[in-house]
């Protein structure tokens, strides 16, 4: 290990003398992390949905005695999509070429059916196939839910006016017919039969509860949303864990690949092979370099997140007490990614190819780890055999889990096993470098 330590010291000295390389190595993964964050933000962007009005919706509609401004109501309940008014042919064309991801159509007679309050009118939704379809369907279901909530309120208010009429009497209209109602209150004073009077009292009591009962029947469960609690997405545990894993993996893999390939480019490996340092010791020095630099940068990223969290006064704060636990995890993650980079270097012909190949291989590995398992199960299986996804889970647990040690142990063991396999493969293939 003395000789590996001497080579590591040399590598650190060389790295210190290459400020441009160091700056690129540090800033590139941060840039990738930022771009991924932007892409993730785009994934949350509102999808465009065509709105086809075959019913010639009027400006206002009166339902249950309440006047609805159609355009304003639609705009209010369609927060999560961008509704684009189109005629039917254009909507079909844009759906086919992907400019819109769905068509929502208001069929002829929709408003008339709605006003009649006898049968539920239907909105028609046509979506594309693929990953967005289920998301758009959910958003359109949410839109219809919101519309139903607004209409429900109007219907309940209308129904309650009829109940009020039955209780207190007066003039009313139904399906365009006007009528006078005596009402239970007045009926009670005109009835002498005690059994009928008792029935009227019970009916009055029951009808008095109609208001709450109708609300409860319409909404057995109410969802109360409290905003402004919790932290923003950018400072969430998930983003922190992904950023740490991305920076560690990218930096360590590329650095180890470049450092090992540089030994061959400078023809030093053959000199070392003359008993000055074994191939295993040379490999260990590169893996140690990757682990050390990745740990320093990873800690820097963790501290930067912490400062942002403190400055922003984010609820829940930063788990500073967990930061020391990150150190061995970052070292392990860096070493595994370093072994991966070293393996790449043994396959490449010279340093520039090794660096390029390392970048080309590491990026898909990172993207695989980001793809949600439910979206593409195969990506999840492949990702399990690679270090990135385990690193994410390890950092996530260490930073924010109440009891992180079980997850840390499992993911640490995974990383160790993958690291040993990568190191052993790289050691075997290193003979190519001195040939």
């Amino acid at each position, binding site marked *: 290990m003395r000789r590996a330590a001497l080579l590591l010291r040399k590598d650190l000295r060389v790295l210190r003398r290459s400020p441009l390389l160091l700056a690129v190595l540090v800033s590139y993964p941060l840039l990738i992390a930022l771009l991924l964050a932007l892409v993730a933000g785009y994934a949350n962007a509102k999808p465009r949905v065509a709105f086809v009005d075959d019913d010639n919706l009027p400006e206002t509609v009166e339902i249950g005695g309440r006047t609805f401004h159609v355009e304003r109501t639609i705009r209010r309940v369609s927060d999560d999509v961008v509704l684009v008014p189109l005629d039917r042919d254009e909507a079909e064309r844009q759906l086919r070429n992907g400019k819109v991801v769905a068509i929502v159509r208001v069929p002829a007679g929709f408003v008339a059916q709605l006003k009649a309050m006898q049968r539920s009118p239907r909105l028609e939704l046509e979506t594309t196939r693929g990953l967005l379809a289920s998301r758009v369907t959910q958003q359109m279901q949410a839109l219809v839910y919101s519309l139903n909530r607004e209409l429900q309120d109007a219907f309940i208010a209308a129904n309650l006016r009829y109940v009020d009429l039955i209780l207190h009497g007066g003039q009313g209209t139904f399906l365009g017919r006007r009528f006078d109602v005596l009402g239970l209150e007045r009926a009670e004073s005109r009835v002498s039969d005690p059994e009928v009077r008792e029935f009227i009292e019970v009916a009055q009591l029951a009808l008095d509860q109609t208001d709450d009962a109708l609300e409860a029947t319409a909404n057995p469960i109410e969802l109360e949303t409290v905003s402004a609690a919790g932290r923003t997405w950018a400072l969430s545990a998930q983003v922190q864990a992904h950023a740490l894993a991305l920076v560690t993996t990218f930096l360590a893999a590329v650095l180890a690949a470049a450092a090992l390939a540089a030994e061959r480019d400078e023809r030093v490996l053959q000199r070392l092979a003359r*008993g000055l340092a074994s191939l295993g010791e040379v490999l260990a020095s590169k893996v140690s370099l990757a682990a050390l630099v990745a740990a320093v940068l990873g800690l820097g990223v963790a501290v930067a997140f912490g400062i942002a969290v403190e400055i922003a006064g984010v609820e829940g704060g930063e788990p500073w007490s967990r930061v020391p636990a990150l150190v061995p995890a970052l070292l392990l993650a860096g070493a595994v990614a370093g072994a991966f980079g070293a393996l790449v270097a043994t396959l490449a012909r010279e340093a520039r190819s090794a660096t390029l190949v390392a970048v080309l291989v590491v990026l898909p590995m990172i993207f695989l780890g980001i793809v949600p398992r439910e979206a593409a199960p195969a990506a999840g299986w492949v990702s399990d055999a690679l270090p990135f996804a385990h690193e994410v889970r390890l950092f996530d647990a260490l930073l924010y889990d109440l009891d992180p040690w079980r997850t840390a142990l499992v993911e640490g063991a995974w990383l160790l096993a993958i690291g040993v396999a990568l190191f052993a493969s790289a050691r075997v293939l290193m003979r190519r470098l001195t040939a």
Partner: protein
Amino acid sequence: MIHARGVSRRYGAHVALHETDFDLRSGELVALVGPNGAGKSTLLSMLAGALEPSTGTVERRVSTGWAPQRSALYSRLTPRENVELFARLARAPIVGVDLPDRPAAELSVGQRQRLNLALAFLGDPRVLLLDEPTAALDDDRRAELWQQVAALCEDGGAVVFATQLQEETERADGVVHLHGGHVE
């Protein structure tokens, strides 16, 4: 001091050196000569232990120093740092080098060759394996090198060197001619 038996080196289908025997005895100064691609560097590298032979064995009974044709050193380290590192790796005493204190990449070809040779002399090896050692050296440095080589041989050491120069072969006790990977 060095005994090679049946050593050969193959790169895929290409045979750089066919099966060769080689013995080096105390006090000997041996020149390897031959056209480009004859197998001189390959034989020297295998004698030095820098290259694994495809077949055969090399027995080294004493310490060896090796200066490859193209310098093998860390170009971002200064000459002093290169010497320190390789000396520490070899557990040899650190010696001073009379070269500018700037990264080896910024040295002239001749200065890099001097550093390459300085690394070969680290630890006072008993055998030197030098691949075209005087290439890019000025006259004074050449003379200095040949003095060191002669002193080592007189002291019971041995030297094998590859060269393209007729006048250098005249210094040798023995000359090995190589052609197309064969010893002639």
